[in-house]
């Protein structure tokens, strides 16, 4: 009879241990097995009927994907959370969405989430204000970002000097179309406007040289050689230079925004 009891206990233990394999999300997460942990949290979400428990599991699943730097999947999990908007968990969810969109480089969506967060939970969360500024910097609205930081300097514990250091006198992004048009007007000027004076001089110099060489060839009576080769090469360099000026302006803006973001992140 004892043997029978032991058998029963053994079999039950076998069964229950298997059933609990998918209830170990937290320990899997702690071990760094993030994908397995994500599946585990999804399983717990699937098996639960309580909205709060389900929300908690989806939030933890989002943490797993955040740890794997798969922000789009983290967002998928966060966007499936269904709780009343003013629930305390939703404040964490909203913050995580702001962060995940930002890390996923979807700055407009992150900014929209910031606005929703401020509407629901008030405008005085320093982390959210900081993300609002980071998003504005990322979409090249630098004047607005500076104004926001100045309006919230006490909340963020930043001085006016700190804020000025972030922007370093640079409040207006370069306009790529303006760079293109400037180079069309006078080759090389667009590159100079974008903040690359040597590239501008080189581009302008090459094009002036081509015009000169073509004119010299025409003067010497080489009409086909001077006219066709000179015009073809000048045409290529002229439009190519203007397009390059546009790219350089975009590159400069990206570089400046990255520098500003880094400075602000280091201060916070």
């Amino acid at each position, binding site marked *: 009879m004892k043997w*029978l009891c032991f*058998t*029963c206990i053994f*079999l039950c233990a076998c*069964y229950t241990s*298997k*059933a609990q*394999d998918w209830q170990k999300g937290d320990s899997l997460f702690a071990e760094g097995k993030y*994908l*397995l942990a*994500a*599946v585990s949290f*999804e*399983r717990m979400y*699937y*098996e639960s009927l309580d909205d709060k428990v389900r929300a908690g599991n989806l939030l933890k699943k989002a943490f797993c994907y955040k740890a794997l730097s798969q922000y789009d999947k983290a967002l*998928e999990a966060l966007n*499936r959370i269904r709780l009343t908007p003013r629930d305390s968990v939703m404040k964490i969810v909203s913050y995580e969405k702001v962060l995940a969109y930002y890390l996923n480089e979807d700055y407009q969506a992150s900014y929209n989430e910031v606005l929703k967060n401020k509407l629901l939970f008030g405008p005085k969360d320093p982390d959210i204000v900081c993300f609002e500024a980071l998003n504005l910097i990322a979409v090249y609205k630098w004047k607005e970002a500076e104004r926001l930081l100045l309006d919230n300097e006490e909340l963020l514990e930043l001085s006016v000097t700190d804020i000025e250091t972030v922007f370093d006198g640079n409040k207006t992004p370069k306009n790529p179309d303006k760079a293109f048009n400037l180079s069309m007007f006078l080759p090389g000027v667009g590159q100079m406007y974008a903040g690359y004076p040597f590239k501008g001089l080189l581009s302008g110099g090459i094009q002036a040289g081509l015009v000169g060489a073509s004119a010299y060839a025409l003067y010497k*009576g*080489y*009409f*086909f*050689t001077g006219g*066709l*080769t000179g015009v*073809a090469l000048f045409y290529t360099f002229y439009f190519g230079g203007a397009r390059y000026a546009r790219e350089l302006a975009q590159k400069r803006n990206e570089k400046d925004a990255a520098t500003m973001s880094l400075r602000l992140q280091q201060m916070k």
Partner: protein
Amino acid sequence: MKITISLALLLIGLVFRAQAQTSFQSDYGFIKHLESISSYDEANLFLRSIKDNHASEGQQDTISFYQGKFNYLKKNRFESISFFKNVGKSNLSYWNAAKFYSALQFAYLDNYEAGLSELSLVENLSSEERELLNLEQAGFSLLTRNYAHFDQISTSFDSEFFQFTEHQDELVRISSVLSGHKSKSPFLAGLFSAIVPGAGKYYIGQFGRGTMALMSNAVFALQAYEGYRKDGPKSPAFIVFGSIFSVFYVANIWGSVVAVRVQEKSFYDTQDEMVVLHMHIPLRLLYK
């Protein structure tokens, strides 16, 4: 006493089996849930981890089928085929679906013989599955350019199955496009380009490229002529521009020959893609 113990053990065995069944049903429900939220990577990981927990043939077949299906949905074609191969006949609907899916994967991999061989293994088909088989075989006939076989199959297309009719009609249309297609000659394209640079491209309908070829050859020819006229045949201008013209002239002839081959390949590739698409959609509609 022995009888009591045996009965008790039998009872425990039955309870355990029932529990295992319940556990599998729960796992199966979770697999369907992961499928519904399109989490195929998670589903694959989950299936891999539960494979050893469920030993019965039916359960193993279900797991293999879903591993194949999720890999198919992730476009991991070779992995998908290898999982579908493990699906046994414990459940014929899984068996047949696995064969249809495998055949489709082989169609995507241009291995038509293997695809047809998979289709030959289906059994006890429903009337809808029979019509699907007809359509898939018709698709393979087009892919292998066996138009006579296609005509033979297409006459038995049944218009009763509304989800297939559009795709059946499309296959018939593609068949007429393929059988009516007149191939361009690479030799003629090269010859035309040798007579007038760019003419080979005009011959195959590439008017923009033909004009560009004509203009670039004319420019280099004029420059070579200018060098020859002004400075003589040994002048650097004539040698440089004459050489550039020669290279462009020969390259243009060869380019016209290659363009015909590329255009032909592109035509057949486009039609094949369309065929596979119209083999694919009905399959998804039937096994959604």
